[in-house]
């Protein structure tokens, strides 16, 4: 990578960002400008091949970038030229230092040593790194922002590892190692730094339960930061429920000093994304490998993150400071998945329980109402039954009453009949009255079947009547006959009388008594 070009691109980017009033990464991300410094595209086509540059970006910045690459190439050519001609033409000190820097900047190095002097300024920290074996010394500098990101508080005597490249400061001709990252060496030093930072953050109240945001119910949009390689992703994927999660994933280093920067950038990226919860996971490891998770800058980023942060970091003795600062911390990727699933699974239970409750409550209500209706019906039935019973009684009474009347009537009828029969008998029933009776009586109805014999019957009666009329004794008397009776008995033969008997002689009109004088037997 051409560090000189990289520096120039960064300076240009910074100017652009300031002019436009936007963050530098909105111009180009570090990855993009690093790729430009590495591949040095010379035309549009080559530039568009770099990730992060599309037509829109090209239209806006493409020419500037190509010009910078070209300019740098020109310088290189000139350097080359200078190299060729330097034996003949002496170089200016400035040109020579530029030449040297160009060469020096090209290769990154990682060096280890002990801090032997320290000068912390506003924007930069000057220090020297001493070889603990032979005392060799190199001047170093680190920009304040890089220093802060390292999470290390430099102290004289502290053993550290620096990444960076050498550079000669032209005004003094002094060579310094420009550190792009710093890390502590050894478990002991790491532990001390860890304990110190932990105490500091704790004092600030950053680990307090009170400031922790609760995880959202039914999280749907999940921001996930972890390393794509390793078993972590597999564990997480295997255990996350199928609840239609929308998981946005950023692949980030989770170990080593470089991880700090990647994690920080990843968290910042998610700051502008629409997510319900941010999840950071990794497996277990040594304290050294956890360095990024104990980084102060990262801890503060997590604390200020707008949505809840769920951290799942593998089992280990010391809890990571990010874990302590997060809104919720569990120990494995599986536990993270289960935590995310929890409210969804509870929702399932709530639905089932609610369903059961509502149905049973309403069923009870219906049963109560049914019971009430049945009771009411029973009551009504009983009430009506009473009325019916009363009515039946009344009916019975009436029946008895009617029977009584009937009996009375029958009695009257019987009595009347009984009384009338002798009367009728006493009366000298005329044939016509009998006839009338026959006509008018129920007998007529009874003998309705005999109606056809009526005339015959009448004729018989008339005949009887005629015979009776003809034989009426009074009729004989009218004709001049008389009736002789002795002691009320009609005399028909002389044998019934004796001489001297007094007999009564009945005439048509009147009668007289006569004494028997002579009896003539012929």
């Amino acid at each position, binding site marked *: 990578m051409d560090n000189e070009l990289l520096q120039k691109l960064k300076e240009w980017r910074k100017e652009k960002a300031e002019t436009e009033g936007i963050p530098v990464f909105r111009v180009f991300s570090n990855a993009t400008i690093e790729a430009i410094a590495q591949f040095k595209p010379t035309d549009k086509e080559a530039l568009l091949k770099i990730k992060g540059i599309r037509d829109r970006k090209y239209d806006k910045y493409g020419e500037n970038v190509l010009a910078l690459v070209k300019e740098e190439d020109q310088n290189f050519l000139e350097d080359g030229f200078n190299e060729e001609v330097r034996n003949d033409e002496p170089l200016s000190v400035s040109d020579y230092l530029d030449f040297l820097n160009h060469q020096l900047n090209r290769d990154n190095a990682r060096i280890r040593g002990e801090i032997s002097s320290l000068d912390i300024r506003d924007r930069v920290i000057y220090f020297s790194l001493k070889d603990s074996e032979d005392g060799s010394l190199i001047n170093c500098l680190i920009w304040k922002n890089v220093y802060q990101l390292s999470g290390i508080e430099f102290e004289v005597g502290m053993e550290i590892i620096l990444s960076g490249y050498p550079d000669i400061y032209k005004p003094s001709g002094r060579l310094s190692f420009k550190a792009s990252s710093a890390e502590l060496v050894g478990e002991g030093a790491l532990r001390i730094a860890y304990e110190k930072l932990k105490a500091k953050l704790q004092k600030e109240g950053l680990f307090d339960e009170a400031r922790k945001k609760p995880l959202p119910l039914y999280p749907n949009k999940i921001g996930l930061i972890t390393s794509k390689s390793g078993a972590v992703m597999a564990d997480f994927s295997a255990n996350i429920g199928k609840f*239609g999660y929308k998981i946005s994933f950023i692949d980030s280093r989770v170990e080593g000093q470089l991880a700090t920067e990647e994690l920080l*950038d990843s968290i910042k990226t998610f700051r502008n994304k629409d997510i319900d919860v941010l999840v950071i996971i990794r497996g277990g490891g040594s304290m050294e490998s956890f360095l990024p998770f104990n980084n102060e800058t990262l801890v503060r980023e997590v604390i200020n993150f707008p949505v809840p942060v769920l951290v799942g970091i593998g089992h280990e003795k010391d809890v990571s400071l990010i874990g302590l600062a997060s809104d919720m911390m569990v120990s494995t990727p599986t536990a993270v998945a289960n935590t995310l699933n929890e409210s*969804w699974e509870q929702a399932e239970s*709530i*639905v089932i329980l*609610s*369903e059961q409750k509502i149905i049973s409550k309403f069923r009870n*209500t219906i049963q109560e109402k049914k019971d009430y209706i049945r009771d009411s019906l029973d009551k009504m039935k009983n009430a009506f039954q009473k009325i019916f019973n009363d009515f039946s009684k009344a009916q019975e009474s009436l029946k008895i009453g009617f029977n009584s009347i009937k009996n009375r009537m029958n009695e009257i009828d019987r009595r009347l009949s009984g009384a009338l029969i002798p009367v009728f008998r006493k009366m000298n029933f005329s044939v016509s009255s009998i006839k009338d009776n026959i006509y008018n009586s129920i007998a007529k109805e009874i003998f309705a079947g005999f109606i056809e014999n009526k005339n015959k019957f009448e004729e018989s009666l008339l005949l009887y009547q005629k015979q009776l009329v003809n034989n009426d004794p009074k009729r004989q008397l009218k004709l001049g006959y008389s009736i002789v009776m002795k002691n009320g008995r009609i005399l028909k033969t002389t044998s019934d009388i004796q001489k001297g008997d007094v007999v009564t002689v009945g005439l048509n009109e009147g009668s007289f008594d006569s004494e028997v004088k002579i009896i003539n037997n012929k």
Partner: protein
Amino acid sequence: MVDKKINLKESLSKLNGIVEWFDEQEEVDVEIGLAKVKEGAELIKDCKKRLSEVENEFKEIQRDIDKE
């Protein structure tokens, strides 16, 4: 799937409201109760639909870099 998160939250809250309503009533009015049961049944249907197995969407995104 359309974002049904809010619906689920709201539906569960409404469902809970219905359960509480039944709990609170000393004597349930059958007409209102029936309406609540109907509403509850709809909510349960919605919730069950949302809670039924839905595949997750995985999407890898690039991080923005801001070193300065």
